[in-house]
């Protein structure tokens, strides 16, 4: 919640900051800047590059600030680290009172150093001084009754902390900690946790980065990072290619022949809305968890999309083009090769882009369920060992690859079908 509010504040602050900066600069008088009606004019809206940069930058900034990253000099308050002390007043069964000191050392598990138990004087009287070592973000149970002389007596109790009265099921706050007394009279000391996230929930950016370096050099679970990602990609490419090889001719047949369309329409229309993920259990039952099952799953994921896009490509050819080709003396085969196929390419490319996206999502999901190697297997396995840094690294890499696939498809589309949309 705090993070969301901070993000919104950065959003608003950056908006005004950029506005002020750009108003100081004399901007180029291009056509759009001379438009008086911009609200509702889609063509007048272009992405503000400064906004994009600040947006990405602020995500990293918040991430770093809330994880105590070493990359930036300022952070939100972290958990209390160091020594924490308080005194308590106990009353024994005879009604006498005595004071004792409790010292708690809170250390950061990330540094790997566990501090030695403090050497302390027991002090005078029946209440004995005590000491504890705990990890940051955790709390300590101060077992006064076990430590003090006569503490086992049933009416032995702690009556005050730092001279403030306390009773069972109540809490009080001292500097940097909250102390809660349980129903049985044990003190539960929770040092202040600050605003930072625990590394188990969200590791710092540099931890993720160093994990990337480590995994890319050492690999993970018997396979290198390159192999994990490569296998996922390979499955997508093989599955997609198989789907396209069957789907495109099937789509053409459905676009050109009434028999084919009638025969396959019910099948295609039924299978199309079934999410590929729903097929995973059946595919595992039929083909097991090996490569065969995954490739068949991806084949099914891309098949219907490619079929429908090829069919739409054929149906979308203007009859005037076909008539013109016939009038110029083309044979059926020539019309197929020189008119129908090129005319359907833009549709097929759109289908291929959608299909590649679906396949990439499906392969990761399939690997989450069962796999020896692959991007999805890597992150699900890491999550079982609470290696959150590896999970985040995997998610980022999956996102980057998915984005790269889409960009590649778009580039090849511009290169191969430049007439699209013209």
């Amino acid at each position, binding site marked *: 919640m705090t993070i969301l509010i901070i993000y919104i504040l950065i959003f608003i602050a950056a908006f005004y900051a950029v506005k002020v900066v750009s108003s100081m600069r004399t901007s180029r008088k291009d056509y759009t800047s001379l438009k008086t009606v911009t609200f509702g004019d889609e063509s007048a809206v272009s992405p503000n590059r400064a906004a994009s940069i600040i947006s990405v930058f602020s995500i990293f900034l918040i991430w770093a600030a809330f994880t105590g990253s070493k990359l930036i000099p300022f952070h939100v308050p972290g958990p209390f680290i160091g020594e924490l002390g308080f005194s308590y007043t106990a009353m024994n069964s005879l009604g006498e009172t005595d004071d004792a000191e409790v010292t708690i050392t809170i250390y950061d598990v990330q540094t790997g150093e566990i501090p030695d138990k403090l050497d302390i004087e027991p002090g005078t009287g029946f209440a004995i001084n005590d000491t504890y070592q705990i990890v940051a973000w955790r709390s300590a149970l101060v077992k006064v009754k076990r430590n003090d002389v006569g503490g086992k007596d049933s009416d032995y109790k702690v009556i005050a902390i730092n001279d403030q009265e306390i009773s069972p099921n109540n809490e009080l706050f001292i500097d940097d900690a909250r102390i809660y007394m349980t129903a049985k009279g044990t003190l539960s000391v929770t040092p202040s946790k600050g605003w930072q996230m625990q590394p188990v929930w969200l590791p710092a950016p540099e931890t993720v980065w160093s994990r990337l370096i480590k995994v890319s050099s050492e690999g993970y679970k018997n396979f290198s990072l390159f192999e994990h990602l490569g296998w996922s990609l390979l499955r997508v490419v093989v599955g997609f290619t198989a789907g396209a090889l069957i789907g495109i001719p099937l789509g053409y047949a459905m676009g050109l022949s009434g028999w084919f369309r009638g025969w396959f329409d019910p099948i295609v229309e039924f299978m199309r809305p079934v999410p590929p993920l729903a097929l995973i259990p059946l595919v595992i039952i039929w083909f097991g968890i090996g490569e065969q099952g995954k490739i068949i799953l991806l084949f099914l994921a891309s098949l219907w999309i490619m079929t429908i896009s090829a069919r739409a490509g054929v149906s979308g050819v*203007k009859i*005037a*083009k076909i*008539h*013109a*080709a*016939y*009038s*110029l*003396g*083309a*044979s059926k085969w*020539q019309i197929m090769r*020189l*008119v129908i196929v*090129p*005319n359907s*390419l833009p549709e097929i490319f759109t289908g291929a882009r959608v299909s590649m996206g679906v396949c990439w999502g499906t392969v990761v999901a399939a690997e989450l369920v069962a796999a020896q190697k692959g991007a999805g297997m890597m992150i699900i396995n890491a999550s079982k060992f609470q290696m959150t840094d590896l999970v985040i690294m995997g998610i980022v890499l999956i996102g980057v690859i998915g984005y790269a696939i889409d960009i590649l498809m778009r580039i090849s589309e511009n290169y191969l*079908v*430049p*007439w699209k949309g*013209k």
Partner: protein
Amino acid sequence: MKGLSIENVSMRFDLHNGNSIQALKDVSLEIEEGQIITVLGPSGCGKTTLLNIVAGFLAPTEGRVVLNDQIVLGPGPERGMVFQQGALFEWMNVRSNVAFGPRMKGMPKDEQNEKVKHLLEVVGLADFEDKAVYELSGGMQQRVALARCLANDPDVILMDEPLGALDALTREKMQGLVIKLWKETGKTILLITHSVEEAVLLGERLLVLAPRPGRIHKEYTLPFAEMGSSMDLRDVKKLKDYTETRDEILSIIWEMEEEIMGRVEEN
């Protein structure tokens, strides 16, 4: 016998709701080689149906079309088509579009290129060979369409509102081009339009079709296309004869349209 003859062509087809439509009834027409004929009529009079029958895309229910003693049974390269718009192949450049017909015939590559070069000069698009068709304006695209049709050296050129989608100024220029091509190539041209002005200007013979059922209502023989080859089209359009003929045909079409509207209102 040389020429195109349309013999007692009727076209009647059934609709899904059980009714049937008589699109054309008993249309007969003899066109001599080298004539330019324009066909005019209110919408729904069957002009496009007639053209599609001559092109061979539709089979008439009665009658037949004969070109140079050959009965038309389907589309063929001896009957070239020019469409209103969007019939060029966007995935080919201008050269490949124009060379499409010769390529289908298996003409050698260098001969194709020579032909393309010549035809593009004729239609006023010299040096546009390597342009993509989607980079051209509407008028230029229609010039390419004309060149593509001529490249096949057809006996008859069928034009389905070839200038319909162009703006008024481009249209005037293109009308000049059509007359020029007709004169220079001596092709038989059958042109369908719904612009009365254009029909009067370009037609050596002008057919006015009447609707429901589609039939030839009236035929004119006009001198303006011939004049247009030697004088400015704007001057032709100023001639008294021209304006009178135009107005006469306009009023015929108007009456037909009114009649259709009336029939619709009665229903």
